[in-house]
């Protein structure tokens, strides 16, 4: 498991380094005044990124695990399950969000998010249907209230529905 984790680390580090390389490449084409800042920043970062990548690879080579954080809590999430399982669940969550976005594109934001809330309550939280419906209605009510009070807007769908559904 540790090996796999390390390899995702390396891939991410490599991608970050590549992004900085692209930053350098792209900046070369800009007008002088627009170029300096991103060019120098990404040049420095490209070098630092390469060093980081080398360190990551060395660590994997030697089988050294990452050092403990210096106290920043939000680093180093501890999981009581396999990382592959975590990644799988993460994938499912992202997929659900993409489906939600698809819904927003098609039937608009309020109705999609209401359905989203109802479905999550029913199938993830495992509540009874009527509680799920209450939660959905509460979400819709909140949206309607906030958008009226604070003049906020939401994405409309392909299918236009009457307020507050679309």
């Amino acid at each position, binding site marked *: 498991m540790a090996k796999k984790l390390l390899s995702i680390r390396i891939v991410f580090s490599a991608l970050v380094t590549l992004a900085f390389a692209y930053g350098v490449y792209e900046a070369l084409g800009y007008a002088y005044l627009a170029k300096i800042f991103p060019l120098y920043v990404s040049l420095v970062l490209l070098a630092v990124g390469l060093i980081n990548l080398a360190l990551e690879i060395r660590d994997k080579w030697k089988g050294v695990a990452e050092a403990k954080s210096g106290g*920043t809590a939000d680093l180093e999430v501890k999981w009581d399950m396999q990382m592959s399982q975590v990644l799988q669940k993460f994938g499912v969550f992202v997929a659900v*969000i993409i489906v939600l976005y698809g819904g927003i594109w098609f039937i608009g934001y309020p109705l999609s998010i209401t359905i989203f809330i109802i479905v999550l309550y029913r199938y993830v939280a495992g509540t009874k249907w009527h509680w799920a419906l209450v939660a959905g209605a509460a979400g819709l009510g909140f949206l309607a209230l906030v958008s009226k009070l604070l003049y906020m807007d939401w994405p409309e769908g392909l299918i236009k529905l009457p307020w507050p559904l679309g």
Partner: protein
Amino acid sequence: METVFQSLGVVLQPGHLLMLLCGVVMGLSIGILPGLGGIVGMTILLPVIYGMDPHSAFGLLIGMVAVIPTSDTFPSVMMGIPGSSASQATIMDGYPLAKKGEAARALGAAFTASLIGGLFGALVLTLIIPIARPLVLAFGSPELFMLALLGMSMVGVLSGNRPIKGILAAGIGVMIGALGDAPAVPEYRYTFGIDYLMDGIPLVVVGLGLFAFPEIVDLLIKGRAISETTTLGKGWLDGVKDTLKHKFIVLRCSVIGVIVGFLPGLGGSVVDWIAYGHIIQTSRDREKFGKGDIRGVIAPESANNAKEGGGLIPTFLFGIPGSGSMAVFLGGLLILGIQPGPSMVTENVDLIYTAIWSLALANVIGATLSIALSKPITRLTVIPFSYLAPFMVLIITFACYQATRSWGDLVALLLMGILGWIMKQYGWPRPAALIGYVLSDNLETYLFISVQRYGAEWLTRTGVLVLGAIIVFSVGMGIFFQTKRRAPASGGEHGEKAA
């Protein structure tokens, strides 16, 4: 002095008080939710403050951020899960106390300590403004550029498990900030031909993507309730008395809080550990620590509220945020049309004092509400996370869409969220990225002005040289300590963090 009391008058107006109260209630709620802290709270409020008068907006923003370290104590004490990163050390002794049936005592002590710490932070901020004024005014663009660089290098070096990753994370932030139109010339950078990117990615999207999204996902994956059944027990007054008895601990840790808040890069996630480590090192009888010593609750709680006052100092005076939430606050100032930095002490001193009064008042209201409403709030922590998550998705998507009201906001949120999640899993410090993002424009503008005005000579100015030396020193020290830390891999947890 006159301005100080004029601002008090503004703060006590009903409209402002109402905003402050809204902020406090929101802050208390966000503090209770595990993982979500000042950054997410501030970011959610950004769409609301567009077009608001600055005094009211300050009530809302500062009211919220001031009390998060107050209410985040609930989950720390009741369940041993930090409500936000500033309350982790509280768990060490707060949770054992709750297991002994003394949760009320721990909370009473914590809220009193929070209150005193918060007021202390506000007091220091008040005193420092007139003292720092001449220094601030002596700073030109070259010095401000170096200061921003110093802030970022400290964030990077101190917040990661490997300084190099911290620097890279800050760099990711700077490059995200460089997307879109260049400050000095009409040129669009890194837009990939996408119209949405021409104005750059908005702060709301970056903040919620990097911080809220990963938190929601992780809590859903873990799938547990914030808290199990909870009983408060008795001893509120004992807790208050405990804090008053240990007034010197409160004072010392408040000083620590202000200093840590003031230094860029440390912020919420270490202030509690530093205070906790300090109190262990300076106590003669250490046996009870970790088993329910009330001093272990008082120390981090007084420090974490005091840090907000400290954090506002560099934010207002130099436009350099001391922490992630201050970075968002800085973005909020720009939305309100206020340019932080030297002009703040000449043109907008009244606003600074409004902020200070709001900070003090919010701490009082927050602590009072936390004690008065402790029973219902404790019940809130029993709600399983899967009940809250769908609504949190609603709030972050809705808030993000307000940024430019285009589909780009939603897509960018998802992409930033994925980036933030990966960074979180693999030890890339996200606060560094956020601060880099917020400072990106300033860095470029300061550099531009420096070069235009002084040519290459800006590098030889005394202030620049001094700041440059500090940067080299701090990065060097960071790398030195990091290599030392790596050698004994299993060092004592608090001892190491207190170092």
